[in-house]
Every structure is written in structure tokens, then in C-alpha cells.
């Protein structure tokens, strides 16, 4: 684009005559009031055209005399030249006709050199330059407008007084689904939009034309006949002609559908959030750095005694609470504002507008700007007054409960202890009474039976001293002797069984007692019996009556040995263990003797003899019960054993071994 100040001009001179060239230069430099810059001198039209391709030139001075042939080719060349830059033709009378033709082909002016004077040439030059400049400006404007209309995504239209399109831009053309803007010309909105929409815009445009006032940034819904829908931001202006008369309207409209949708979505979200916080019973509010409420929910407003957000916004706690309370709030806010550390689930006591004391669970988190700066606080308060009261009541109730439980427990323990004691006492009394009675009865029987026995025995002794009794007499005497002995043994057993049962216990080594007892039963062995002791060397000492326990051991060992008349193995084990109560050894015994978890000492005596018939097992501890042949046992041994074991607070059980034989298990408390 050619640009230069109006008072300066870059000139290309096409002059074949050098003298004439000097003269023209001189003349223009001195006579025209223009600042002339001679860009180049060309000898011919062809040369000038070449310069013009390379240099910026405002105007060309062409001496018609320099043109070789005034033919059509020359005319076309000048025409081309003048399309690019104003060409002023200098003519002589000889070339005047040709110069006129050149002007018709587009040259700016032709000036006769002969009558040339400064005014005419400089006027012509100036006029040519002005025109060229205006032309350039106009072209430029046109290009701007064209670019704008072509490329702007906003829709632009121009309408006449009847609201008919006279010009639309590409964006609107595309919106209308047209392939050429001209297809819209002469048509109205009614051709493209729904009738309602068309009526509305027509009214708007008439209003603009009547009042001359623009409609600015009106949000319109855009319903096209093809069913498409959108939102637009539209501005309508009156279109005036040069004289200022309104000849129509023009408008620009921007598609804001996505904005509208976003806005609607935001609105929905905002309403939703609002509804959420307003429906929460918790207080939610936002305070700025100075403690002014920015936003709060209905629950908070109600608590403050306010009706609406507006009653609260911009005010502080000092406007709603006694100074002391408000101070306390501010003190709680301060560290969060200062450090940015949130305060979580802090229990706060406060007094509401009605003067009611209440407890709240408070959370305060900093409200930050995008750059992280703390703008204020977001607070959440939950009323936990009810819970606090209930908690206090519960605590009290718990304390009371614990106390009464303690009392009940201790009372129960006392009761239990008393009960146990009573039972033990009762048991002892019963036992003692029983034993006393049995003792008395037995002693009486023994006395009354033994005396006659003594007589019989003495009589037998007498008869035995008779000289030479015959064989059968001696047999009779022996049988009678045996019978007396048997009867005496029964009495002895009875006496043993009923003997006043008082233990004299000491700490005794059960293992040692076992060895002792084994020593005294060895003589009973008629058949080879292998004795296999497995005695725990770490067995603790037990509280035992040595004499009575010896009786127990001897009795049990003797039974085992008698059961193994063909020989066998006598296993004896001692060990300690803790009662687990699982699958257990205390089943079928006086289970109240031992508790789960108690440590006990165990003695097991195991033989490989004939065992005990299963139907007799339950009776073995009964007095006068025996599995031995008549005359071999009194039937009192195991009942005496049981009595002694019971007196020790121990237990005894006897069962058959799976492989034959019997096993006796004694358990002693440690």
C-alpha cells in the first residue's frame, strides 16, 4: 500500500528527453509546494514498468513524447500502469490526442507541456495523489469490513426498512444453512425463524427505526424453522444513510448457547448446593477475614434470629451475640486464620439468641483464594446439646450401675462364700454325724460279734489240743477256723471303714510313698508282675496323711496284683497338669472338686489284669462289694480307699483299659 504524507510525493518520471527531464525536475522542485522525491527516471514505458515493480512510487509522470508508438499495446500498458499508481501524462500538441486516449484508458490527467505552469501540474499531481490515497483508504476499509464480515463468528446482518436482509455475513449465512449470502437478500426473519421469533425481532427493529435508539446486548432465544434452538446476545442498531436518515437496521448477534447452558448448569448446581446447605440442620457459614458473615444457611440464620441471608451478610458475631461470646468465637477463629490449620470437631459451648445454652461440634477450615491466600473461614457447627446431655446422663447412669454392680457382685460373692461355707459345714456335719453313727453301730456290732467269735475260736483251740483227733475231725476244725477268721476279717474291715476320719496331713513325697507301698505288696505276688514306674521327679510335695495314704496305695496295688494272677505289668505314673476342661479327665468325677485351669497332681495305676465287668464298675466303691471269690476279699477295701481319698480333697476313678486290665486315676489338688 502506498503511504506518504499529503505534502510529499515519490515520483517516477518517464522521459526519454534528458533536457526535458532536467527541466521538469527543476520546475517541480521549485514551483510545486510539494516535497518531491525522485524515485527514478525511466527512458521508456517498459523501463518505468520495471521500476514500478521494484520501488514504492506515489505517482508516475509520463511524457507522451517518450512513448514510441501510440498503438493499442501502448494503451494497454498504460492502462495496467494506471491501475497501480496514478499516471499523469504530459502532452505536447503533437501528442495531445494520444494523451486524451491515455486518460480514457485510466491515466489521471493529461497536461499540455506547452501551457504548463506550476499550478496546473502541481494541482494535477496533488489531486492525483489525494485520489490515490482516498482510493487506497477505501480499499483498505472495504478489505477490513470484508475480512470482518467473512471471518467473525458473530452473525451480522443489514436490513432495509421492511426488515429485509440486504447483507449478511458468512456466520449468519451458515446459521441459515445457505451456500451464498445473496440467497438471503430480500428475505426476512419470517423466512428462517419461527413466526413468534420473527414477530419479536420485527417489532424490535421497528422500535429501533422509530426511536433511533439501539437495542444493546439483548439475550434472545433463537428458534429456527429447522427446529434448531440456541441462545444469542443481540445488538440492533439503526442503519442511516449519508444524510442521517434511517434506512434500515443492522445487527450483530453472538451465539451464547453454551454459555447459557453453562449458566443454567451453574444455576442448577448453585440451587442444589443452596438447597443442600439450607436443608442441613447443621449451621454452615462463611466469614471473611474480618469476621463478617459472607454466606450462611437457613439453620444458621434461624439460630442468629435472622430472617434471610441479607440480614446476616456483612455483619459480625458482635452484632448478634453478647460481646463476651463474640470474643470467644473470634478467639477460636484466630488460629485458623493465622496458621491455615483447620480446627476439626471442636466442642464449643455457646448461648443462642434466646439465651439457651448449647453445645456444638465445630469445624473451621480456612477459606482460601485461588492463590492460596486465606480469605476467611468456612465453619460448620452441629448441635450436640442433646447428645451432651444424654452422654452426661449415661455417664451418671453408668457410674451408678457400676457402683450397684459392684455392690451386687460383692454381696453375691459374700453370699456365695457363705453358701459354700454353709454347705461345707453341713457336709462336714452330716459326714461327721454319719460316721459317728456308723462308728457307734460298727463298734457295737464288732464287740457283740467278736466276743462269740472269741469263744468259738478259743473252743477250736481247745479241741485242737485234744490228743490225736482223727483226720476228718482236724478238717472240720480247720474249716471252722477259716470261718472264724473270715468273720473276724469282715468285722475288722467294718471297723476300718467306720473309724473316725480325721487326717493328720504333712507335706509328703507321693513318689517315696509309692515305693514304700510297693515294697510291702511285693510279698503278695504269686505270679511274675513287671512293675513299670514313671514317676515325675519334680512332683511337688502333697498334703497327705501318710498312714492312710499308704493304706490306699497298698489296697490299690494289691487289687492290681490280685487281678494279674497269671502275671502282667503294673504301670505307675505320677505327673502334674493343668485342667483344661476339654475332653477331660474330670468327667464323671466330683467335678466341683476342681476348677478349670487348676493345677493338679495325678497318680495313675494301671494293670493288665482281668479288669472289672462293665456292669459292676458303678458299684466298686460301695461297701461289701467285691469281685473276688467268696472269702478272698471283705468288699470294704475300695470303699475305705474312696473315703480316705475324699478326705484328702482328692478324687479317684477306676475304669477298664481298652487293651484289658484296669486303670485307677487319682487327682490331688496342688
Amino acid at each position, binding site marked *: 500500500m502506498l503511504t506518504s504524507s499529503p505534502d510529499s510525493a515519490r515520483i517516477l518520471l518517464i522521459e526519454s528527453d534528458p533536457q526535458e527531464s532536467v527541466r521538469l525536475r527543476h520546475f517541480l522542485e521549485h514551483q510545486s509546494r510539494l516535497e518531491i522525491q525522485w524515485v527514478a527516471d525511466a527512458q521508456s514505458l517498459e523501463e518505468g514498468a520495471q521500476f514500478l515493480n521494484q520501488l514504492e512510487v506515489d505517482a508516475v509522470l509520463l511524457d507522451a513524447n517518450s512513448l514510441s508508438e501510440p498503438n493499442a499495446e501502448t494503451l494497454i500498458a498504460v492502462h495496467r500502469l494506471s491501475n497501480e499508481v496514478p499516471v499523469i501524462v504530459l502532452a505536447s500538441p503533437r501528442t495531445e490526442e494520444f494523451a486524451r486516449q491515455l486518460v480514457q484508458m485510466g491515466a489521471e490527467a493529461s497536461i499540455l507541456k506547452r501551457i504548463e505552469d506550476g499550478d496546473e501540474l502541481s494541482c494535477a499531481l496533488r489531486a492525483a495523489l489525494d485520489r490515490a490515497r482516498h482510493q487506497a483508504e477505501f480499499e483498505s476499509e472495504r478489505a477490513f469490513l470484508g475480512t470482518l464480515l467473512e471471518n467473525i463468528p458473530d452473525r451480522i446482518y443489514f436490513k432495509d426498512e421492511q426488515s429485509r436482509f440486504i447483507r449478511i455475513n458468512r456466520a449468519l449465512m451458515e446459521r441459515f444453512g445457505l451456500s451464498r449470502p445473496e440467497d438471503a437478500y430480500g428475505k426476512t426473519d419470517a423466512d428462517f425463524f419461527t413466526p413468534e421469533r420473527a414477530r419479536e425481532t420485527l417489532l424490535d427493529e421497528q422500535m429501533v427505526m422509530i426511536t433511533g435508539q439501539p437495542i444493546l446486548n439483548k439475550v434472545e432465544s433463537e428458534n429456527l424453522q429447522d427446529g434448531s434452538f440456541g441462545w444469542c446476545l443481540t445488538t440492533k442498531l439503526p442503519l442511516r444513510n449519508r444524510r442521517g436518515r434511517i434506512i434500515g437496521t443492522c445487527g450483530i448477534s453472538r451465539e451464547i448457547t453454551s454459555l447459557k447452558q453453562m449458566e443454567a448448569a451453574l444455576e442448577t448446581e448453585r440451587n442444589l448446593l443452596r438447597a443442600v446447605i439450607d436443608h442441613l440442620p447443621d449451621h454452615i457459614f462463611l466469614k471473611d477475614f474480618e469476621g463478617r458473615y459472607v454466606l450462611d444457611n437457613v439453620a444458621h440464620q434461624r439460630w442468629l434470629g435472622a430472617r434471610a441471608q441479607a440480614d446476616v451478610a456483612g455483619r459480625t458475631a458482635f452484632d448478634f451475640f453478647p460481646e463476651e461470646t463474640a470474643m470467644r468465637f473470634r478467639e477460636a477463629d484466630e488460629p485458623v486464620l493465622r496458621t491455615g490449620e483447620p480446627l476439626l470437631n471442636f466442642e464449643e459451648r455457646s448461648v443462642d439468641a434466646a439465651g439457651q445454652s448449647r453445645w456444638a461440634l465445630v469445624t473451621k477450615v480456612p477459606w482460601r483464594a485461588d492463590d492460596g491466600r486465606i480469605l476467611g473461614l468456612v465453619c460448620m457447627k452441629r448441635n450436640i446439646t442433646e447428645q451432651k446431655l444424654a452422654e452426661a446422663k449415661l455417664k451418671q447412669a453408668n457410674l451408678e450401675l457400676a457402683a450397684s454392680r459392684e455392690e451386687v457382685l460383692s454381696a453375691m460373692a459374700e453370699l456365695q462364700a457363705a453358701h459354700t461355707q454353709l454347705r461345707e459345714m453341713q457336709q462336714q456335719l452330716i459326714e461327721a454325724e454319719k460316721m459317728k453313727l456308723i462308728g457307734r453301730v460298727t463298734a457295737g456290732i464288732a464287740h457283740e460279734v*467278736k*466276743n462269740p467269735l*472269741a*469263744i468259738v475260736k478259743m473252743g477250736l*483251740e*481247745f479241741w485242737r*489240743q485234744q490228743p490225736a483227733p482223727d483226720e476228718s475231725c482236724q478238717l472240720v476244725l480247720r474249716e471252722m477256723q477259716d470261718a472264724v477268721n473270715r468273720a*473276724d476279717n469282715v468285722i*475288722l474291715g467294718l471297723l476300718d471303714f467306720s473309724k473316725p476320719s480325721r487326717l493328720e496331713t504333712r507335706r509328703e513325697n507321693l513318689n517315696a510313698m509309692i515305693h514304700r507301698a510297693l515294697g510291702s505288696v511285693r510279698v503278695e505276688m504269686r505270679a511274675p508282675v513287671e512293675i513299670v514306674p514313671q514317676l515325675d521327679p519334680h512332683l511337688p510335695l502333697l498334703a497327705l496323711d501318710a498312714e492312710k495314704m499308704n493304706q490306699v496305695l497298698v489296697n490299690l496295688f494289691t487289687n492290681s496284683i490280685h487281678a494279674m494272677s497269671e502275671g502282667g505289668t503294673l504301670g505307675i505314673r505320677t505327673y502334674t497338669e493343668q485342667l483344661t476342661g476339654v475332653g477331660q479327665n474330670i468327667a464323671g468325677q466330683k467335678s466341683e472338686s476342681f476348677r478349670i485351669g487348676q493345677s493338679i497332681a495325678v497318680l495313675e495305676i494301671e494293670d493288665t489284669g482281668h479288669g472289672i465287668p462293665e456292669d459292676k464298675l458303678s458299684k466298686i466303691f460301695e461297701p461289701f462289694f467285691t469281685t473276688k471269690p467268696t472269702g478272698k476279699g471283705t468288699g470294704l477295701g475300695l470303699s475305705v480307699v474312696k473315703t480316705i481319698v475324699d478326705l484328702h480333697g482328692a478324687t479317684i476313678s477306676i475304669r477298664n483299659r481298652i487293651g484289658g486290665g484296669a486303670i485307677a486315676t487319682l487327682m490331688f489338688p496342688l
Partner: protein
Amino acid sequence: MSPMSSPKRILIVDDESGFTRLLKLTLEKTGRYIVREENDGTRAWSTASEFRPEIIFLDIVMPEIDGGDVAQQIRADSALRHIPIVFLTAIVAEQETRSTIGGFPFLAKPVGLAALMECIEQHTAPGSVE
């Protein structure tokens, strides 16, 4: 124990006359003892004073008087104090005869001849001459 030695004098105090009679017959049949029966406990002391036994067998449970009391009466008499006393009773078992009753040895009824004789020999001087 020579058959030549004079018979030992034995007093048996027991309310069971059947027993004392058989004991007397049996012991005397050995030819080594002279036995005096006393079936009334209350007369035991006077019989002993008169009979002067070398050993006294004493029942414990008797009507009127208890064997223990009888033993005390005899011990209380300086003339009889040296005479060994053995309780012969039905109220104790044989196993217990190793110990004593009130400081006195005892035998349990029913008793055999062998045990009786052993007891007598144990508590009296061998072949004593009276």
C-alpha cells in the same frame, strides 16, 4: 520254756463267762498255766489280791465297771502294781495291737492260742518260781 517249770498264774477278767471258761480250759490243757476266771469286773481287784496272778488279761467293755478303771485300781495297789496287765478286747482290730491302750498292751478278740501264749511269755518272767 521247760515243762518242769511251775505253771504260771493267770487271771482273766471278762464278763463273757463262756469265753473265760474256754480260755481257762485251753490254757490249762497245755499244763503250763493256772487260770483264774473273774466274770465280775468289780471283784477283779479283790480276786487279784487273793489269787496273786503273774499276768492279768482284762476285758475293757464290761457292765458295772470299765476295764480301764479296773487297771487303775490294780495299779493303785502297791502289792499288785508290778503285775503286767494286757487288755483283751473286742473293740479294737488286730492291726492295732502293736500300740497300747492307756499305756497297756492289748490283744484283740478273737485271739488264738499261739498269740496268747506269746503274749504271756513276753510279759512274764521266764520260768518264774512262785
